């Protein structure tokens, strides 16, 4: 179960990571090893085990629909590298 270079590039693209050729080669190896491990797990017969979304013994944890104060705008924008008009200012994004 070895990943192709193209697959590594696709995963990097989805994660918005810019990788060097050396990194691509390295991660191809490492990610392939992880997948091999997953492949071993997949050999286990799970046909009698219901899909598990959580291992915690918790269900139906909900809050009532009550409004509480939000953060002051100074705090909201405190860590923003750039801000304008009360908004986070980011590199221009084309509508897609």
């Amino acid at each position, binding site marked *: 179960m070895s990943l192709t270079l193209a697959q590594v590039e696709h995963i990097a693209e*989805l994660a918005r990571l810019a990788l060097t050729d050396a990194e691509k080669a390295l991660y191809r190896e490492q990610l392939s090893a992880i997948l091999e491990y997953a492949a071993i797990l997949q050999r286990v017969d799970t046909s009698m085990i219901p*899909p598990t*979304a*959580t291992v*915690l013994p918790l269900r139906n*944890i909900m*809050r009532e629909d009550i409004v509480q104060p939000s953060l002051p705008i100074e705090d909201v924008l405190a860590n923003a590298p750039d801000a*304008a008009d009360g908004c986070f200012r980011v590199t221009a*994004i*084309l509508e897609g």
Partner: protein
Amino acid sequence: MPIYETIIGLEVHAQILTRSKMFCACSADYAGAAPNTHVCPVCMALPGSLPVINRAAVEKTILAGLALHCTIGPEAVFARKNYHYADLPKGYQISQYELPLCHDGWIEIEIPNETGNRVKRIGITRVHLEEDTGKLTHTGGASLVDLNRAGVPLLEIVTEPDMRSPEEAHAYLTMLQRILRYLGVSTADMEKGAMRCEANVSVRPVGQAQFGTKVEVKNLNSFRAVVQALEYEVARQIAVLESGGKVVQVTMGWDEAHGRTVVQRTKESADDYRYFPEPDLPPLVIEPAWVEALAARLPELPDAKTRRFVAELGLHPRDAALLAEDRGIAEYFEAVARESGDAKTAANWITGELFRLMNTATVEIAAVKITPAAFAALMRLVATGQINLNSAKRVFAIMFETGRSPDEIVQELGLAQVSDADVLAAAVAAVVARYPDEAAKYRGGKETLFNWFLGQVMRETRGKGNPAVVRELLAKALKG
């Protein structure tokens, strides 16, 4: 040229009416708020913050699912949908994937045709709950991010590919909007972004079992845009096939300004979203007792109401549908019908005078000042002959304006109809005495003069004479 069949499936997002957001206690009422003033560590995705599910959003989703005849649960799991975009601070949207709250339902739509209305059932694949994204504003060289909308609860309703024309898609959206409004689940206002629509469209030659390649059309922000975009896209696909080409699976956006669909940047496919169960939120178990309690809260829906108005109250189907269209109006009508004991007359007044005044003044039913009791009191004044219909309309307009009681207005304007036979007999006698020639002609057989005499007496009483009583007295006097 073969005849083509159109296949349409719709995906609708509707904002759920809750006070707070889906996973935090920030206000969900983002309209008109200054940017980033409804934001907290959860909805701006600060490390270490944890979401907690809003019970009201879950219950409203189940209500919508019940109204759409869905199976509810029994287990529902939230999932992360991973993608990068500046309006999505976490880098994933909390949505649902494998186990939505509601699934496998249907909705009935009515499509007008030559012989009345054709009823068609549209399958509902799923109804799930997710969170909205923030809002981006694009200025010259940058984009501005406002997170007030981030985390507002959204209902996603996906249909089967069951619609066969843009008209059916329009009918579906109309019915869905009406139901969501009735339930109080959403304002479902497309122009204000509270309801958004995406369509999957394909065409195939009639008789072909296999579906054609489907194209996804986004950015449908009004009912008009939905119909226009679908018509355009269907024509485009047929033209591609007719010229020997192949339809390519792609995401298009509707370009309202130019009236055409344009290819959008290819986004991730379902695989690329890398959905997985949200580890921060324990699953929901929807016990039957919970569903039953919610089902008991389901209001009677417009279709059922229309049928009942016709069957039980004897309304014309057109009036019944008009009154059932809006829940507030339907409830108002029923209150007036109950108070007055005369549903048909109540329906006439509401679909006539009240709608006219509401339209002119652009007033919603909730703001109408006439109480059902006062409305019924006015109807009684007419029914018992105390005022005539023309006076009643004048009084009604004043009631609409001021919310005052009809009796008070009638008294003030001196509109009370005179039914006292002695008073009216004097007026009749005076008129007959004033026009001896006409009286003679009438007695000589010119019966059409009766109505002229009636008019003269009404003028004599300044319009307040009870026409029925006047008629009787006049007939007697003219015989004389």
